[in-house]
């Protein structure tokens, strides 16, 4: 068993096993840090959503908590002007490439983007930036769910779970830059891919990119 250590998060003394990633220590102790791409069981960290920044005493700049192993005496602040600014910008950037239609969205009320907005007092609209064009086509070939890329934040949770838990590997990332998408091999509809419709990816999706077909 690994050594237990004590650290301070937002003034609270917390005991955790040494080396565990800060994000999970905080979340498991009821301290919220925004996150989308983190998967506790994944050893090859993605660190791609750039939302889980925190301030750590002794470090010059905010760091992502999903990548930071906790250590004895560590002093963490989950909020600071610098952290808030980075999170606000990253969040607004994600929204600038997202079909914003919360009131009619199937995930309205259970969406993690909405949760982040609520927790951090952020607006669910794009103010400083220009909304970018998104893909409008929806893959509704599976019987039980639909895949709508216009609501995908590229967190990669569906891909990880499809490969590592479902052990199917029907989807992966393809293309680069702004065109980066989650897709099947050869970009065929999901129904023509090895997808078994186990539904784990739908559970993993933080938003409504993968959503159950309403009965």
């Amino acid at each position: 068993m690994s050594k237990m250590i004590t650290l301070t998060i937002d003034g609270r003394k917390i005991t955790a096993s040494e080396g565990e990633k800060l994000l999970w220590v905080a979340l498991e102790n009821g301290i919220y840090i925004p996150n989308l791409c983190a998967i506790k069981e994944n050893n090859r960290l993605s660190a791609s959503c750039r939302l889980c920044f925190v301030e750590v005493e002794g470090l010059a700049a905010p760091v992502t908590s999903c990548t930071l192993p906790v250590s004895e005496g560590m002093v963490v602040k989950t909020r600071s002007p610098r952290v808030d600014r980075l999170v606000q910008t990253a969040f607004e950037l994600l929204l600038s490439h997202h079909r914003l239609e919360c009131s009619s969205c199937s995930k309205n009320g259970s969406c993690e983007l909405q949760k982040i907005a609520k927790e951090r007092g952020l607006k669910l609209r794009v103010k400083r930036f220009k909304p970018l064009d998104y893909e409008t086509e929806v893959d509704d070939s599976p019987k039980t769910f639909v895949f709508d890329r216009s609501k995908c934040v590229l967190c990669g949770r569906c891909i990880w779970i499809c490969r590592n838990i479902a052990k199917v590997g029907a989807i992966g990332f393809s293309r680069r830059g702004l065109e980066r998408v989650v897709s099947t091999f050869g970009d065929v509809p999901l129904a023509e891919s090895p997808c078994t419709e186990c539904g784990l990816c739908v559970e993993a999706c933080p938003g409504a990119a993968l959503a159950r077909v309403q009965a």
Partner: protein
Amino acid sequence: MNSASIGDFYAEIKSKADAKVDALKEKPVVWIGTATCGKAAGAMEVKEAFEEAIKNSGLDAEVKEVGCMGYCYAEPLVIISKPGFPDICYGYLDEGLANRLVEDFLMNDDPCFEYALVALETNDYFPTFSDFPRGVYEEKIILEHCGFIDPGDIDHYIAREGYASLAKTLRMQPEEVIREMKDSKLRGRGGAGFPTGVKWETCSMAAGEPKYVICNGDEGDPGAFMDRNILESNPHQVIEGMIICAYAVGASRGYLYIRAEYPQAILRVKQAIQQAREKGLLGDSIMGSGFNFDLEIFQGSGAFVCGEETALLSSMEGKMGIPQQRPPHPAVSGLRGKPTVLNNVKTLCYVPPIIRKGADWFKSTGTPESPGTAVFSLVGKVNCTGLVEVPMGTTLRNVIFDVGEGIPEEKGFRAVQIGGPSGGCLPESALDIPIDFDSLQEAGAIMGSGGLVVMDEDDCMVAVARYFLEFTQHESCGKCTFCRLGTRQMLDLLTKITKGEGELSHLEILRELAEDIKGGSLCNLGKTAPNPVLTTLRYFKDEYEAHINKRTCPAKMCPDLIVYYIAPEKCSKLCNVCVGSCPTEAVYTREDGLKAIDQEKCVKCNNCLKTCPPEYNAVVKLSPPELLKEKEGNLS
């Protein structure tokens, strides 16, 4: 095998190499620069012309290929060595000059000084490198042999003390090698400037077998070609550096990661690896020492981001070339999870000279915190473009105006872009900063891999910032939020500004976004991508404001903010050149015989301005476009 026998091994290959090279001194040899820059300028045609002329003359002379000596502006270049004369270098060669040199110099002892560029040895007739400003400022450590030895023949390298450092290394303890490298304070030349010796030490102490040494030759900055030239001109120095590194850290396998777009470099390295194996310098029991190490080439497929070390490793593992979170650093967990040293081509090139001459010798050049030299590819609006090696601490002014001999056509200096697309644009006031890793960072730029693009008064800094951002945005892998979406938002704002559609509030958004991308991105591509924008906002804010407030491009470069205009008072009825040069028939002849431009048809290709003869100089660019009304109003 004991150290004496390693010495014997080396002495034997050295004496063979010396004999081969000395034999060449008995007869005339024409050395032609056939690196990519030379070939592009026509070196292969020149080579054929020499071969043909020498064959016809019946002379006993040889034609040999060498790499690039850095004087790319004067390509094709040849060096002619003829017994009884100093070696002389000639530039701007063509077939005619090749024939002339064979006839006058090789056959008749007239060295045709009127075509000579420089002599390689001190003599009574013609100046040498040290007689020119460039030769005074340059100090060559890693480019020393580039352009002077045949990169396709290992003996040419060995004859110049090549692999002597390896022979010395194999008689040292690995810890001694690492200590020497740490003492030398050599900093990685790929851009970040991390101490090389520390990296090696980390890898040597990391657990895991086998260990790897990888040379990062995925050079991708626009305008940068240092690594390509080194690989094409002196591949063995890189290989020797890699073997020494492998011995120091205990690696058994190495890879040279070279972009597939560098076919000549790949060819030269392939030949070099083959020859090194045949000499017993690679493979099992190198120089009979019992130390095993072998190398192969991995060809990169052209993604810029693969120059980032974790992305490079991913691509070698057959995955998408996408950066990963660090730590773990590759020195601890790199290729296939094993400890891996990843060094830039230039960094590895410094290793043999440091081992041979010692850390103190290396530290005697450069600055205390950045010892050694800096290699730049000097390009853009500068007279003598090419590869330059100067001591760290040399000022940009010396590099641009003394080594590069200033800006063509007596134009004014506007800025210098240093460190590639992730570097910064520095103004006149920054020209006197001594160049090293830390001072450039303070000024907002980075050392980067060594691209140096000079810009003159005709270059719009907003358009330049936009150009570099377009490059990084295009090359973003798309993994992390800031780089994928942030660079795109910045690019859209810059595009608006260059079209005259910007607002002052955009500048604040640009700056904020740039700072956030810098602070929030996952890898160094994202962290440095905003540098050109941040530095131009810092040093050239007035240009941004002119685009926004006055819809004016001060450098008259942004096509949406300029119009072409033919001044009737300067135009001549006797000349028609501009009319013929126009691809869209926008230029026409007025009833009075002077020329004018139909703005509806004009595509702003700049042809009319370029072709208008200097005695008239009638075509001008106006910015803002509204000035046209004023001009035409004056007419009526």
